[in-house]
């Protein structure tokens, strides 16, 4: 598990890692099991960050996303009340957390297409995913303007 690792991998490199991991699965049950696993292992967010401002709408489940600046990298922590959503959040955090604001703003999250996440998520969940990525980018923009 990579959540708070100190790595030097770029967003692009992490995306490639994720794509090859997902390529190993032969069916969607396995992919789901993996996502659920990621969800279970997502470190808990500090409850004080579960504020209305940190809540992301657009999904049937709730998502809380918190960002802080650490040494010019943005650290994301998050949670959801649904475990599959938590798993998806976990992947996004692995990709975007501990990166610079510039990289976050400038890199497209194209792994989502590649691992076929969107097709296999419900419309509401896919919208939720878009909202999450949008929120991540907005945080990065906010920090880069500081």
């Amino acid at each position, binding site marked *: 598990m990579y959540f708070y690792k100190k790595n030097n991998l770029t967003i692009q490199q992490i995306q490639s890692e994720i794509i090859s991991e997902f390529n190993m699965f032969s069916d*969607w*049950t396995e992919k*789901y*099991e993996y996502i*659920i696993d990621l969800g279970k292992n997502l470190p808990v967010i500090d409850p004080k960050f579960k504020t209305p401002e940190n809540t992301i709408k657009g*999904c*049937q*489940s*709730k998502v809380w996303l918190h960002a802080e600046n650490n040494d010019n990298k943005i650290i994301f922590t998050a949670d959801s*009340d*649904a*475990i*599959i*959503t938590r798993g998806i959040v976990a992947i996004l955090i692995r990709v975007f957390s501990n990166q610079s604001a510039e990289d976050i703003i400038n890199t497209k999250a194209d792994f989502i297409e590649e691992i076929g996440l969107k097709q*296999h*998520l*419900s419309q509401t*969940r896919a919208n939720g995913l878009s909202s999450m990525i949008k929120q991540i980018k907005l945080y990065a923009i906010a920090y880069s303007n500081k």
Partner: protein
Amino acid sequence: MGNNKFNIDLIRNDFPILNSKVKGKQLIYLDNAATTQTPKVVIDSIVSYYSNLNANIHRGVHYLSQKATEAYEDARKKFQQQLNAKSSSEIIFTSGTTHSINLVANGFIDLLNKGDEIIVSHLEHHSNIVPWQMLCEKTGAIMRVIPMSEKGELIFSEYEKLLSNKTKIVFVNHVSNALGTINPVKEIISKAHEFGAAVLIDGAQALPHFKVNVIDLDADFYVGSAHKLYGPTGVGILYGKEEWLTKIPPYQGGGEMIDEVTFEKTTYAKIPNKFEAGTPNIAGVIASAVALDYINEIGLDNIAQYEKELLDYATQKLLEIDEIKIYGDSTNKTSVISFNIGNLHHYDIGTIIDNEGIAVRTGHHCAQPIMDYFNISGTIRISLSFYNTTQEIDSLINAIMIAKKMLS
């Protein structure tokens, strides 16, 4: 349907979509309270309309226009008969239950004064709450709520306490879409009438499941949607007593609903036209009547009986699952089971069983107040139709077990 009025295999054959595969699995459709599937005769009637009959109605001298008008007006008569309304002019076609309710709520703007009261039930769909909240905002009327019990039933004695001479209208669904509870609408209506209040019954979830008789109920307004009644999308029904429909003002202005138009003064047509401004969903209305014929041929009593058996079977099977909680266990309910399992999220379960080809609804089912009552964010809801089978229930149970294992 041959001699045997209820041959499930023949019935399933009438619905093309039931043969579909979803993600490689046979589709199991258990979301009938959201929308019902469409029998081939109904689809055919739409094709036939556009291939042979399509024309704008009421205004034309020409042959197609006459034929289309006749078919449209025949559909009105069918709905009159179905609901046992006194006259076909008491049947208004709208674009859906929601539209029907808004039409009536709008009609009460000038009938309500500040401080007047209107009564809703805790069991309502948002469509039977929000239009009335908007009415309260416009008029200063106050909305009172009939509370519900843990069983998912309305508390009648509390309802009686809410009624007074200030009460102007009561609006309650016949069947709750979120829990399946059948409400005692006849008693609710008769109590309201003692105080001179009108009553609107939201029958969206009742019409597909049992015979409704508006005269027997003495309902002032009764509404429903064709797309929940094996008909097409975009058609709603509004029954209103002639006195009421004559009393309330038109909702929308436009063609058809007028008598004469000048820039100085416009006079309105009589009912039903007064409420049908603009070109209606002609093909949809005609097809909705075909859907009525279809379910009447099977027989609503046969449907009710079969669906009851299926509901009992499903309830029993679900209750065998560890940690399941079913919301709403009125003895008087129909075709809906709303539940959660342990503290698994309804949305997670819905997602996984969808991958098994099973369509259920998760979330608040447009009935947030009920969710608030139970202090939950949502449930998994299965809603049954007469084309569902016990085998499908077995597959559902199976899929839930898979989901439970994956998620725990």
